[in-house]
């Protein structure tokens, strides 16, 4: 009887102990991201509006758009240059369906209708981009998506009835609801943080779900994927649709932050910037998109002053970004994430060699 009880309690406590061990292992493995999460949550207590909005907020928005490229490229092996364009479509649509300074075009629908409609249209657009490029590989995917991005840029530039030509839209307000002005620095910061964290977590989770694993299978060997029962084209198109959802939300946030959108927002420059951000950060892990965005934002914000301080033309900051891009690609094709991984691996092996 007593023996039986011991066995019973043992079999009860053992899984619990294992679970506690699993939790602490998880915390240990994700220490860096947990610390980052806490820092981001308490940032408004210590940082002013400039840091919240122009540095961290902008980083997270650009990071989301780069994340949509990371998902396609890192997991699916598809380099789409049209992700900024998808963001631009939803950005333009929120201006068309919601309020702006142009009553002749804008429909002034409330945000809770305008935003879902804008996202829906952008996801449909992203899915069409996917359908057009899913049967291509490598350089051809890049070319067809770049062609579509360029076509959309010229459409916005030359079309006046919907896109208002080169003027675009201004005074596109973020919503007020629950008694909060969501464009005020702190609410806007938390809104952006919420969507960025959600996208990040979703991508990370899906990377180990059947859909994401199959996407990595498509990346490694599309022919074999067909030969074990997957419709490769359908899988690729679905990946474009999911990536478009993230980019579309990012596009609306970008417009609400800037209060405007114009062809320049979806020009080839903006399109290439997203590629640079994703590659510099590293496309092998979702965090790379945000690291790349942070570096871009810092350079974009401070390089001008730094260059002037050393007696150079401040307008050359783009050159600095380009130079950084070349250096990263040369020395670490998997970006900052790759450098981080190698440093950690080295620390671990040298730690393992330590007799103490």
């Amino acid at each position, binding site marked *: 009887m007593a023996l039986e009880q011991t066995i019973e309690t043992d079999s009860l406590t053992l899984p619990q102990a294992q679970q506690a061990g699993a939790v602490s292992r998880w915390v240990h493995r994700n220490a860096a991201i947990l610390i980052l999460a806490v820092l981001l949550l308490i940032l408004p207590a210590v940082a002013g509006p400039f840091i919240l909005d122009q540095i961290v907020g902008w980083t997270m928005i650009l990071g989301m758009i780069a994340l949509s490229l990371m998902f396609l490229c890192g997991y699916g092996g598809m380099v789409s240059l049209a992700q900024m364009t998808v963001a631009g479509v939803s950005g333009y649509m929120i201006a068309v369906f919601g309020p702006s300074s142009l009553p002749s075009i804008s429909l002034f629908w409330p945000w809770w209708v305008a935003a879902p409609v804008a996202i829906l249209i952008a996801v449909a657009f992203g899915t069409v981009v996917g359908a057009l490029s899913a049967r291509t590989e490598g350089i051809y995917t890049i070319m067809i998506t770049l062609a579509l991005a360029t076509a959309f840029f010229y459409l916005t530039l030359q079309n006046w009835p919907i896109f208002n030509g080169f003027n675009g839209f201004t005074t596109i307000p973020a919503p007020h609801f629950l008694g909060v002005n969501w464009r005020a620095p702190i609410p806007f910061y938390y809104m952006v943080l919420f969507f960025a964290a959600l996208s990040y977590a979703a991508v990370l*989770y*899906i990377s*180990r*779900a*059947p*859909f994401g*694993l*199959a996407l*990595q*299978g498509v*990346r*490694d*060997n599309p*022919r*074999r*994927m*067909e*030969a*074990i*029962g*997957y*419709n*490769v084209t359908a*899988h690729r198109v*679905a990946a474009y649709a999911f990536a478009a959802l993230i980019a579309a939300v990012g596009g609306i946030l970008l417009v609400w932050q800037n209060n405007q959108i114009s062809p320049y927002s979806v020009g080839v420059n903006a399109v290439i910037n997203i590629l640079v951000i994703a590659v510099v950060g590293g496309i092998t892990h979702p965090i790379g998109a945000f690291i790349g965005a942070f570096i871009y934002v810092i350079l974009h914000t401070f390089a001008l002053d730094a260059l002037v301080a050393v007696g150079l033309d401040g307008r050359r900051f783009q050159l600095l970004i380009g130079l950084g891009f070349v250096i990263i690609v040369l020395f670490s094709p998997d970006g900052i994430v790759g450098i981080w991984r190698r440093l950690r691996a080295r620390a671990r092996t040298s730690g393992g060699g330590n007799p103490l």
Partner: protein
Amino acid sequence: MSSIAERIAASGTSNAIELRGVTRYFGALAALTDITMSVRPGERRAVLGSNGAGKTTLLNCITGDFFPTFGTVRFFGEDVTTLPPHERIRRGLRRTYQISLLFSRLSVRDNVYLACRGVSRGRFSFIRTRARDAIMQSVEELIALVHLESVADRLVEELAHGQQRQLEIALALAGAPRFILFDEPAAGLSPAERRDLVAILTALPSHIGYIIIEHDMDVALRVVESVTMMHNGRIFKEGAPHEIQADPEVQELFLGSGHA
């Protein structure tokens, strides 16, 4: 696509594989010329022939990796000539590749998991599979079957060549196969691994038929009941293993000259 009832009715009476006049050109080169052959359900068949005879191309036409230029392919009675490969796989066809086609940046377990998921529902699922889900049991069984337990968490690109060949076989056994095409599965295996392969093949349930392309006669003739000899894209001879071995023409062309 025919209805399920039609498919079931057809599969009761038909051959597992039925090729009629299958011809495949690569440019001007006829890799296959007018191949007509049938394999019964549960039948085990070797396809032999020297390099470039068209054996791999034959398998490619059966799976749909390449479509035949002319001719029809039937799988359990259903005309699958123009179906994409994944549709044929979902109907119970499986194959391995002569040159391993694996998911190099995924773990062994993920590779096998993808194969099991590919022939089940939920290929697009956004919900992670848990360790206690039924599919994971099949995954672990397949890994054990090809003796890859010790490297189950390793990336495929880190595996030795022989281990990759074993994994190649595991991917073709996922789900409930009805007919399997093995393209030189023993190539690159050690003698011990070859014995394991023969054991796996002979232990397959008797309703599962297969075609095996194999240069190693010791392996091939031990695990099949019929043989098709190919030469220059044509079928050259068909028969039981002992007939083929005894055939003087075959001996002159293949066995004696050390090609096969």
